[in-house]
Every structure is written in C-alpha cells, then in structure tokens.
C-alpha cells in the first residue's frame, strides 16, 4: 500500500498505466497489480474491450429531427429551464435538429468503418490461411514494424482539434477512418515498443524509444478520449442539450445528479450514460492540440527519475531556530503558574527531542563551538539521549482524569496506541510529517499566541491522522472535506513544510484536527480491512504455492478464497461510500485517480479470485495478437473468460453477472427482493453499454461474484454460505454500509465549516441514510446531540448576548416551538436528545419583553437596534448604544469610568464554552487531584480556570476556546439544517418545532423547488448569524 506502490507503477519500464485514460488506465494498471504479475506478459493487454462492446452495441439514431417537445423535455430533465417563449428556444430546437443530422452522418461513418474492418479481417484471414506458422509470425512482425515506423513519424497533435476552428465532431466525422486506423494499430505500436524495451535488458533506454513510449501513453489517452466522445455523440442528449452548459457542470454536480438518477425507480439509462461520459471526459482531461503536447510532457517527466528534493535548509539557521524555541520552552516550563506537572514537562521535552533528533544529528557538526541557547539545547539533548528514560513516561493520571470528565458527547484527541494500524506511510511521507510536526511544536511555544497543549495533543496522534491534518491544511480542504480525503492523504500526498506553512494558521490546524478526529474511525477501519485482506491473501498464497507448509483440504482452500473475496468486497464498499458513489456506478466515476486505480485493482482481484475458485485454467501459451484483429471482428469474444488478462477477468465478471441474470436471479439475487430488479437491470445494462467492457457497478459485481463463488457453484462449502450471506444485501453487507453511512453523517455534523455545495453534497449523499437506517440516525444524533450543556451555552450566547435579531413574529416562533415541545413531553413523558437540546435553546429565547412602537423617524436607529440588540433594549435611548457594543447584553454593568476593553470582546464565547465544559467541576478536580496541587492552590481561581479551559479544549482537538465555541454553533446549526431540510419528519408538529426554531434566527427560509438549488439558510449562514448576529 501507499506511495511505494504508486511509485513502482510510475517507474515501470513497460508502457503501461497512462495516468488519466480510464480505459487504458484500467487495463494496464490492474494488470500490473495483479497478484501474479509474472503470468502477465508485458503488452498483453491490447484488446480494448470498448471496441468489442461498441461492436455489439446497437446504435440507433432516430431518422427524424427531434420535436420541440422532445427538446424541451430533455432540457427539463437536466434542470435547464427553458420557457417556451424564450428567445433561445427556437435556436435550441433548430440546433438539436442540426445535431441529430450530425449524429446520422457520424453513424454512417461508423457503419462504413464496421464493414470495412470486417472485409479487411476476412482478407487477412484468407491470406493467413495459406501461410505456415512461421510465415504468419513473420508477416505479423512485419506489419507491426511498418505500423510502428509510421507511428514514430506521427504527430499526435494532428489527431486533435485546435483551440479555434473545427470542432471535435468535424474532426471525427471528416477523418473517421484515419483516426480509427491509428487507434486500431495501438496494439502493434505497443507490442513493438515493449519488445524493444525488453530487448534492452537492463540497459538505459535510448531517447528515441523513450519518446515513442511517451507518445504511446499519450495515444492511449487520445483513444479513450475518442471512444468516450463517440459514445457521447451517439447519445440522445447530445443532440438535445447545449454543449457549453453541460460541459460546464462540475464533477460534484454530475455525481450528485447521477446519484439521483440511480436512485430513481425507473432509471433513465441514457441520461446516466450521458452524464458518466461527461465525467470521463473530465477525467481524461484532453481538449485540444495544446493539451496533447502538455500530456506528452507530463509522461516524459514520469520517465525521469523523480528528483529527490534537496534539503535547502541552512543548518545553522535551523539549529538557531531549534535552540531559540527550546529556550522558550524551558523558560515556560520553569513557571509555577502552569498546569503541567513535572512529569508532563518531561514528556513535552521528550517529544521535542524526538521530533528534532534527525535535524540535530545531521546539523550539529556544522557548528564548531556552540554557545548560549544552542549549547543548552545540545547538552540537554545529549543528556536525554544518554538516559532515554523520558521517552516512556506515562501520561499523568490528572490528564487521564481530566479527559474522562470532559463532556461525554464530545470526542477527544486519541493518542497513537501500541497496536499497529496496518496503514504504512512511505519514508518520505514520514519525514514530511516529522518536519511539519517539529515546526508546529516550535511555533506553539514561540508564537505570540501560545498553543502548547493543542500542539502536543495533535503530535501524539497516529502518523496517519497527522498526515490527514497536514493534507487538509496544506491543500485548503477545510471548507469542503470529505471522507475520501484520507485516502488521498495516505496514498497520494507528500507533506511539504514550505507549502504547509502558507495555510498553517492555528485556526486552520484546529479545524483540520477536528475533521481528522471525525474521520479517525474510518482510518482505523480502513487499516483493519487492509489487515484482513493481507491475512486472507497470505492464506490463499500459501494454498497456491507448490510447497505449502500446511496441507489444507480443498474445502478449506475454497473457504480461504471466499474470505479474501469478502474482505475485498468490504473494502470496495468502503471506498465506494467514501467516494460518494452509488453502488451501481462503475468505478471509473471516482474523481481521485489514485483511488480509481485502487478500485480497479480490487475489482480485478475479486474477479481473479472468483476465477480461481471456479478452477479456470490459465492458458500459458496465449498469444495476444490472436485477440487483436480489432473492430468488427467478433471472433475474439469466443476466447473470453479463458485468458489470464484483465480483459479476461472482465469478461468473466460479466459472465458471472450474466449467468446469474440468465438463471432468473438464483442465489443471492433471490434474497434481494425488490432491490434485485435494479441490481440485475444495472448489471445487464452495464454489460451492453458499459464502457469498461461491462464492468458492473459494485452491488451487482460483488453480489454476483459471491453467488458464483459460493452459493450457485458449490452449496456444500461450509462457511461460504455464511460469508456470502454476510456480503449479501440482507446481511452484514448493508449493516456494514450502514456503519459507514453513519460516519458519513458524522461528517456532516463536523464539517459545517463547509460552504455551500460541499455540505449539501454530503447531505445529499446521506439523506437516504437518515431515513433508511434508524441505527445510523441514532448514532448521528448521538454525535450532534453533543451535550445539552453545549447548546445551553450556545443558547445563552444566542439570546443573552442578543446576537439574534428578532421581531415580534420570531418571538411567536419561539413560543410556538416551545408549546409543541411541551406537548410532546407530556405525551411521551420524556424528551429525545434532540428535543432536549432544542429545549435548552428555546428556554433562553423565552424572554418576556415588550416592543415599543418605533416611529418611522428613527428608522435607522431602530433598524440598527433590531439587528444588533434585539428588541428588549429599547427601553432607554442610551441603552442601545451600549447594546451595539455588546456590553449590556454581556451582563457587564457599565458605569462611569469603566472603559471597554478587549477582554470583553469574546467573554460571551468564553462563558458558553465554560458552561459546556462544566469548568468549575474541572477546576475542582484539578485542585484535588493534581500531583502538584499545593502549587496550583496558590493561584487565583480565574487564572487557573484559564489554564484548565485551554487544556480541556486542547484535549478535544481545539486550538482555542473560540474554535470550540464555533464548533458549538456549528453543531446547533447542523441540527436545525438536518431536521428542517434533510430528514423527512412525518410528524407535522415536530417538523414545525424545528422550523420555528430556525425561523427565530431571523434568516429567510427557502426550500429548494428546482433541481440544483440549495436550501436556505445554509449551515454556514446560520453559524455566521450565531457568531456575529
């Protein structure tokens, strides 16, 4: 796992793995990643399944121009509202007719090409018939060399359109045969390149060959580009819809649309295919001649040894920084008025030395006679290294106790445990993590605003959690994080201190920290899955090896294979979920290319395992060129399922899926009930139109694989049944999925820093989860139900500091909401967690204040007052001025001579957080249980409170009480958002209760009526309102 593997792929000598081309990417990547790579000869993956599929796929182009109504309908289906009297309207109808004409013309080319290829193939077969085997071999080699010579001279740019001028359609229609010929000969080019590469042995690759290889990789992408574009152009919606608008849709948007389409009872498969091809075009990323040149350059760079990033740091400077921070640190730890016990202080220093060790060891020789701070640092360091005792210091019992008494619904920072996580980072990733960690620790002591405790807590988490934090900060993912981020962080991210620094405010680090905490369960279960796959693979490999140390029965061997399949199935489910894909979507709909490859690999592995379960034989003397007669030749299909190639696997996957369908839904599919219809529908549909040669979506694939593996084939396998069931819809499969969904739900809660679409993307994805699985809903609410006290704090803030502008009507909102709540309490005898939370909020809203009539003459003032202070401050004319400054509302009396100051600025926030923390209990605890309590008892209680507050919020992953406060607001806003917009509450009263509470914020509420619209207010707007008024 991890970067090493990626590096391996990228460094391959053989021409494989074009980075972005979905088809070639799929074939090549998976082949190199098969568990038995030695059986896959280089360059064997030449048959594009797409060609075969297109060959089988009937393209129907209606003879007539589309009617007005059809065009309008298509527009409506994709959310482009087009009024019948719009000026654009006639234009679009006539444009649709033009495009339909284009489709027919293209279709004629396509048919002509089909016939031409059939004829050519027939000729070729006739010619070969009279030849001996040697002659055939020679003939093919000559053909291959001729093709390759032309290929070397070819300018790939000529295959593409320029920035202006002809369109891709013109290009394809006018040069159909030429383009197809070039693409058709890819197998020849590939074989020749690989043969020449192999002939080199270990010798350096000559420039010419290197260029050819790069060119070939680029050509893969061009092939994928044309294949997708051609499919797109045959689609009904291509004719009906304006190109510009549709191509401008973002990946996020398309994915959400697809999700909805997949969920619909009657799927619009043609529109699904249209959207999916739009996504694929984005993934391929080619547009014109310039992009081809750029792509070639990228591939060329991949061939070069990746430059090892030079350490440009100045050793003396670095030592100086380390020494100066260490001086600050020791000065800090000499203080009496800090919370840290002697033991804790040692742990901090130990952490610091651990982080700086590498740099100190490397740099110290550059300074001959260290003085002052530096001498002190080096001396203490040597002393520490000599003794090493501090390293194993246990956490003080006080800290453990403190952690225990924190509000139970708030998550705490988890320290890295002794157990291995099974997720490994590369050496350079680890070094990046170390450098950033050292930087953070230094700055936590030297910055004007100190963050020692927060930094220390962060640095004690697992490396994979830390790398996620740094990834989120460095790549500015804080406003739109998703579960997929940790896969990217672990697999495809090299932490870089310099670029991290640019975004590294404590606020950002704190938010990233909270995100990482929410994702921590995901990280852990990912590690567990990797581990179970590794174990299962180990057993399977044992069974396969010629000399197994343990003799197992056939039944046990099969059981092991099924276990490996199940483990992978689970990983697939997790990856799908995290990527926000519907189970029936093909895996190439994932945006992150590294994750995409991982999915392909798992799909392929499962297929391979199913195959070995069925005892299929690997044909050792398979000759790839037998397969590559190309477009229009139906013969190769007969060989499907017998090849140990990925395309063979894919064919087998189809077989598996199809046998199941053909048998009328035997086995697991039976237990699917209603769901079976859509699963089989999808499987069948994917087979026909599927762009990866019929790679089904996840649900169909896993289910069918398991059917083939266990139930359908061999019902006698004990355990296999159970395992198969565990992946089936009725069993563990969805339960497991449910668990993931609830994590996704948790994300919704945490990521309310989200702006706009990102939030709703998650909400959109998870909305079914809320209504579907009561379990996940429960967990979700348990999380957001984060403590009644939490909200009490928020509410106190919200009402007493008068951030909520309210009119008489919103007062009524509160009253109504309260009444409903009371009725519910009377009826049920108790309140749910959410209701409890709401109650706390509303209690504080229930102020009996009367609003004086305000004359129009003081409109400005009254507007200001309503906005800032609420209505209750209208009693005197001076009060509002104070209200504006938030003083009266803070409960701080202003009397003559008292000057406002910054201490007041955030005192309300502090109070809210203190309420949530039960700060007085915590302080008491410290005063009685701290190992050095005598020292602390001498402190002023307010000063001690400050220390305890800081320590407590740090343990919860916040860099300051203000960040914690913001999180409280966020939780509250999320609760309202979910209750009003996401959950489909059937009880009218309950629904209105939350609606009224939302209204009391004074924001305009708008439920979306048109597809693509966001509900208002957004979580962000509510948080802003609560934070600022």
């Amino acid at each position, binding site marked *: 796992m991890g970067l090493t593997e990626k590096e391996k792929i990228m460094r391959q000598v053989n021409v494989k793995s074009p980075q972005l081309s979905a088809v070639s990417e799929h074939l090549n990547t998976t082949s190199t990643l098969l568990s038995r790579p030695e059986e896959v000869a280089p360059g064997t993956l030449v048959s594009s399944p797409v060609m075969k599929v297109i060959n089988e796929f009937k393209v129907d182009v209606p003879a007539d121009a589309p009617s007005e109504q059809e065009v309008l309908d298509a527009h409506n289906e994709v959310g482009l509202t087009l009024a019948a009297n719009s000026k654009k309207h006639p234009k679009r109808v006539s444009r649709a007719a033009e495009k339909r004409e284009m489709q027919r013309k293209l279709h004629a080319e396509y048919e002509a090409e089909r016939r031409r290829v059939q004829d050519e193939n027939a000729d070729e077969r006739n010619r070969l018939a009279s030849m001996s085997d040697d002659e055939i071999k020679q003939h093919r080699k000559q053909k291959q060399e001729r093709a390759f010579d032309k290929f070397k001279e070819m300018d790939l740019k000529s295959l593409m359109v320029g920035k202006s001028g002809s369109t891709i359609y013109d290009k394809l229609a006018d040069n159909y045969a030429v383009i197809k010929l070039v693409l058709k000969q890819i197998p020849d080019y590939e074989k020749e390149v690989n043969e020449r590469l192999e002939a080199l042995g270990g010798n350096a690759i000559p420039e010419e060959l290197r260029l050819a290889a790069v060119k070939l990789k680029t050509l893969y992408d061009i092939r994928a580009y044309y294949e997708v574009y051609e499919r797109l152009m045959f689609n009904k919606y291509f004719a009906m819809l304006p190109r510009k608008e549709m191509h401008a849709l973002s990946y996020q948007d398309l994915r959400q649309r697809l999700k909805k389409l997949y969920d619909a009872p009657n799927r619009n498969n043609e529109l699904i295919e249209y959207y999916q091809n739009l996504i694929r075009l984005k993934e391929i990323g080619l547009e014109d001649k310039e992009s081809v040149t750029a792509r070639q350059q990228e591939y060329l760079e991949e061939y070069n040894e990746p430059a090892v990033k030079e350490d440009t740091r100045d050793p003396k400077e670095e030592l100086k920084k380390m020494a100066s921070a260490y001086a600050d640190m020791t000065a800090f730890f000499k203080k009496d008025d800090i919370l840290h016990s002697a033991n804790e202080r040692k742990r901090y220093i130990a952490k610091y030395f651990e982080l700086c060790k590498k740099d100190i060891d490397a740099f110290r020789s550059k300074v001959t006679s260290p003085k002052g701070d530096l001498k002190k640092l080096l001396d203490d360091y040597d002393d520490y290294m000599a003794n090493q005792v501090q390293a194993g210091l246990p956490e003080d019992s006080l800290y453990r106790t403190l952690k225990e008494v924190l509000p139970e619904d708030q998550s705490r920072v988890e320290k890295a445990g002794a157990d291995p996580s099974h997720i490994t980072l590369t050496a350079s990733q680890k070094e990046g993590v170390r450098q950033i960690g050292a930087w953070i620790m230094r700055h936590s002591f030297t910055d004007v605003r100190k963050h020692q405790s927060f930094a220390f807590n962060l640095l004690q988490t697992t490396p994979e959690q830390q790398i996620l934090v740094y990834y989120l900060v460095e790549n500015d993912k804080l406003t739109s994080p998703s579960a997929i981020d940790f896969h990217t962080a672990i697999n495809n991210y090299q932490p870089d201190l310099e670029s991290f620094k640019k975004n590294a405010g404590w606020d950002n680090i704190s938010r990233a920290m909270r995100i990482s905490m929410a994702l921590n369960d995901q990280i852990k279960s990912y590690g567990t899955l990797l581990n179970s796959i590794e174990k299962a693979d180990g057993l399977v490999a044992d069974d396969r090896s010629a000399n197994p140390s343990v003799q197992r029965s056939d039944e046990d061997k099969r059981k092991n294979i099924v276990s490996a399949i199940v483990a992978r199935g689970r990983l697939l489910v997790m990856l799908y979920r995290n990527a926000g894909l519907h189970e029936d979507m093909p895996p190439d709909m994932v945006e992150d290319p590294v994750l995409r490859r991982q999915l392909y690999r798992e799909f392929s592995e499962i297929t391979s395992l199913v195959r070995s379960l069925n005892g299929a034989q690997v044909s050792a003397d398979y000759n790839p060129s037998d397969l590559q007669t190309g477009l229009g030749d139906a013969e190769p299909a007969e060989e499907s399922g017998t090849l140990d190639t990925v395309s063979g696997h894919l064919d087998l996957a189809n077989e598996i899926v199809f046998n199941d369908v053909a048998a009328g839904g035997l086995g697991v599919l039976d237990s699917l009930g209603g769901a079976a219809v859509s699963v089989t529908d999808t499987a069948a549909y994917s087979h026909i139109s599927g762009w990866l040669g019929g790679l089904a979506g996840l649900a169909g694939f896993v289910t069918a694989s398991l059917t083939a593996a266990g139930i359908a084939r061999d019902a006698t396998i004990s355990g296999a049944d159970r395992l198969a069931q565990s992946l089936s819809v009725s069993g563990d499969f969805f339960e497991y999925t449910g668990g993931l969904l609830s994590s996704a739900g948790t994300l919704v809660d945490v990521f309310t820093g989200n702006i706009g679409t990102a939030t709703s993307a998650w909400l959109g994805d998870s909305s079914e989860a809320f209504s579907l699985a009561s379990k996940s809903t429960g967990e979700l609410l348990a999380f957001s139900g984060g403590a009644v006290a939490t909200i009490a704090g928020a509410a106190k803030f919200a009402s007493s500091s008068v951030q909520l502008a309210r009119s008489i009507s919103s007062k009524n909102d509160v009253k109504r909401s309260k009444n409903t709540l009371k009725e519910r309490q009377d009826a049920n005898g108790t309140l749910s967690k959410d209701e409890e939370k709401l109650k706390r909020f509303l209690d504080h809203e229930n102020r009996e204040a009367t609003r004086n009539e305000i004359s129009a003459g003081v409109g400005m003032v009254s507007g200001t007052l309503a906005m800032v202070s609420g209505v209750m401050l209208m009693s005197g004319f001076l009060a509002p001025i104070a209200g504006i400054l938030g003083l009266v509302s803070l409960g701080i009396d202003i009397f003559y001579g008292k000057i406002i100051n910054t201490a007041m600025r955030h005192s309300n926030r502090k109070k809210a957080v203190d309420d949530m923390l039960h700060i007085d209990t915590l302080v008491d605890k410290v005063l009685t249980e701290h190992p050095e309590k005598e020292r602390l008892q001498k402190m002023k209680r307010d000063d001690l409170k400050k220390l305890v507050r800081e320590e407590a919020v740090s343990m919860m992953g916040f860099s300051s009480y*203000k960040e914690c406060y913001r999180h409280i607001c966020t939780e509250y806003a999320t609760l309202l958002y979910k209750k009003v917009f996401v959950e489909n509450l059937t009880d009218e009263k309950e629904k209105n209760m939350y609606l009224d509470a939302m209204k009391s914020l004074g924001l*305009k509420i708008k439920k979306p009526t048109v597809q693509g619209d966001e509900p208002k207010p957004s979580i962000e707007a509510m948080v802003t*309102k609560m934070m600022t008024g």
Partner: protein
Amino acid sequence: MKKDDKKLALLSSLEDELKGSDGIGEISVFTQKELNAPMDILRAEIADFGSDLKSVLGEFFFIPFEADEILYFSTVITLTWNLPKEAAADVASAVARLNYYIPCGCFALGDSDNNLVYRLCVPLKGDDDTDRQKQAVSIAANTAIMTAERFEGYLKLIITNETTVDEMLEMIQK
C-alpha cells in the same frame, strides 16, 4: 512635547494596553521612517476575528494634519485583501446599505477594489489632558474592533454568495 511625539506616545500606550490581551496577536508601532509614510502606525494582528475566527490587520494612527487643535485618531481594519472579483459589485452594494445601519464608522472598498476595510475616525481635543486622550483612543480602538466584528458576518455572507443584498436587508430589518 512635540506634536508627533505626543501622537507616538498615545499609540504606544494603546499598544501596551492591547498587547497580551486575549485575541490580539502580533502588535507593534511602525515609525514614519520605517514605513516611509507621513505618520506612525500601530499595527496589530486582531486574531479570532469575526465568524470565521481569522486574523485580520488592524491599523491605528493619527491622520497627519498640520493643525494640532484637533487630533484625528483613525482605526482601519482590513477584513480581506482578496475580495473575489465577481463578488465586488454585490459587496459594494451591500456595504452601501449596511453603512446606513451601523452606528459608527463605515465599511468601504479599498482603492484596489479587492480589499474590504472598516474605518473609524474620532476627533480628540488636541490640548486635552493626556490620560483623557489615552482613554478616548482606547475606547475608539476597541469600539472599532468590536463594531467591525459585529457586522463583518453580513458581508461575509455576501462574499461567499450565501445571501443576496436583499436578503441581507431582510435579515437586518426583521
């Protein structure tokens, strides 16, 4: 005491007051010479500012007028330097509407169109007692910070396109 020295002393006293207080980060007086500007400026990192808890730059200075009967103490808080181009028109309109309602000072778009500032200017009696002047400066600076912070959220919602100007007005008037 020379006029400029007096101003500098007032800024330094404000610096002492603000330094180390909760929510103030880096803070330092920059002299005319250092800035190559006609006046000394006290610059402060106002941390945890507004709804996003970001750091913003606060600048405190006296407008360099020749006459010394009245001192004009100014606070300028730069809310953002990167106002998205496409948001500029909406923000300009929102700023104009919001200024009608806020009690003191004003929001404004900077000269380069992509910075958004809050500004408050308070006149002080030039020959007043120094302690009273210090007090006035302190009140003005703190008022500016708190007022800007209180209203910044509305503009943020406009910048992020969460709210339209009309919706913002509804929020205010409701």
